[in-house]
């Protein structure tokens, strides 16, 4: 039975990784999860300089999910390269580094700094506001997305995954823009922008007013978007959004995802990733599937 998949020449032992920001750089969850069992660890977003992030309250629960507005707190690329990469290299897993920035130059700076580091892929978070262009997210404008993808591809030494925002009218257009500019893969969905109001205090729950929604409640939206993108582009897709178990993961794979990421479900059960991997194998065994590739995009 084969669970190996490959994206842009990088081979993963199984199709399961984690959604950026839900797993740190793996260290915090390594008490529970043998990271060597994961297809890859996708790290928390890292920027050129340390980012303080938003004020608290940063997280809150909503029906069947949660909102977060962490504001991408991170120690910056130097600490990341000194501390997090050596930690992850102790494990037999692939490393996908999530990159964030406020300007194209900042993204390019991080990507250049990573060019000599032993990481396997880069995932670009284009849901950050583009401060030079009225703070609309790079991923919400097809031209801006194409431009940033192109600039990153010029300097990147590792394959580039563009992580798409679902907060757009037509996600397939964004997938096409990323592909046209040379992206090696896309990942989706990032969180869906939401809001929760505290009716007793008559104000927003989150200090940032809005936050990104994740969790089981967003899964049908995510599966639909993965399906639409799979029909629009040839490059591989990493699917995510509300995956809590193997059945959820298989929906994404059948909709066209080559790999899947477990996000908020790590908070619900730290062993979710391992349970998803085992559950996929069980499904394959029960259904006489010899190669996971038979399932990728099998629903037309």
């Amino acid at each position, binding site marked *: 039975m084969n669970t190996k998949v490959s994206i842009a020449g990088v081979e993963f032992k199984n199709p399961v990784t984690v959604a950026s920001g839900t797993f740190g750089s793996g260290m915090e969850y390594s008490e529970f999860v043998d990271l060597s069992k994961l297809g890859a660890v996708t790290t928390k977003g890292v920027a050129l300089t340390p980012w303080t992030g938003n004020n*608290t309250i940063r997280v809150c629960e909503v029906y069947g999910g949660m909102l977060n507005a962490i504001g991408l707190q991170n120690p910056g690329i130097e600490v990341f390269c000194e501390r997090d990469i050596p930690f992850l290299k102790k494990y037999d897993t692939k490393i996908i580094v999530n990159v964030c920035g406020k300007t194209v130059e900042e993204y390019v700076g991080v990507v250049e700094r990573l060019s000599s580091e032993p990481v396997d892929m880069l995932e670009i978070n284009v849901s950050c506001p583009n401060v030079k262009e009225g703070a609309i997210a790079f991923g919400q404008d097809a031209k801006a997305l194409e431009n940033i993808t192109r600039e990153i591809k010029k300097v990147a030494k590792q394959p580039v995954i563009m992580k798409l925002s679902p907060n757009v009218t037509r996600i397939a257009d964004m997938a096409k823009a990323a592909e046209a500019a040379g992206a090696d893969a896309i990942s989706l969905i990032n969180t869906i922008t939401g809001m929760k109001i505290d009716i007793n205090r008559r104000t927003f729950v989150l200090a940032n007013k809005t936050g990104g929604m994740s969790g089981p409640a967003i899964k049908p939206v995510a599966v639909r978007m993965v399906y639409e993108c799979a029909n629009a582009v040839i490059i591989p897709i990493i699917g995510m959004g509300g995956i809590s178990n193997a059945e959820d993961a298989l929906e994404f794979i059948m909709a066209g995802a080559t790999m899947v990421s477990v996000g908020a479900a790590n908070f619900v059960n*730290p062993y979710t990733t391992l349970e998803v991997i085992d559950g996929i194998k069980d499904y394959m065994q029960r259904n006489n599937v010899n190669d996971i590739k038979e399932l990728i995009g099998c629903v037309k």
Partner: protein
Amino acid sequence: MKIYEKAKVTKALELSKGIFELRIKTDIAKEAKPGQFVMVYPKDKSTILPRPISICEAEGDLLRLVYRVAGKGTKEFSLYKENDEVTVMGPIGNGFPIEKAVGKKAVLIGGGIGVPPILQLSKEIKAKEVTTVLGYRNNDLFLKDDFDKYSKTVIATEDGSVGTKGNVLTAIKEQGIECDVIFACGPMPMLRAIKQYAKEKNIEAYISLEERMACGVGACLGCVCKTVNKDEHSHVNNARVCTEGPVFLASEVDI
């Protein structure tokens, strides 16, 4: 090492109005230190996130949790019965640095739902002298009898029905309680006042903070607290309450 497991409820009851007690059998109890907490996972998956609940007592493999019903998750917990299963993770956080009390006069302060974690502290602390000051709204003095077993206990009530009328600091001042070190847990206004009091009196004060959390393991960066010095994770003066905390030296946090 943190443990994530299904544990058995050995006792469940309403301790006083809206305040519930859950005793569970788990190896977490063997590892737990005063001031640490556990994550309790609701079974209703419309409430996906675990609830951080302080450890009131830990004896052998039994953990005693005392909490206030504040929403859907804690409401569910309050309906649990003996022999029910509950998923928990812990112990979490740094806990109170009890070694700082050795040879000193210590005051332990609990306010409102910050009272429960002070109980295990009062059992384990070894100081020259210990006084516990508990602040309540009214004469509903939950856990007060348990505290009487371990140290001299002073009460403050907001309505003045028992002990000093006012808050824990009113009681400390009124009774002329002197100390070298403070350990406290309670609502933010109380902790701010203690931080100020400790600064004026040049007393070491260790305060246990609360913040909205998601993961409980230090990964999500949801539960941060502003710190005077650079934090060890992100180097941006934002320490994680679940990992570097929940107990901080008052002078090192910006609250």
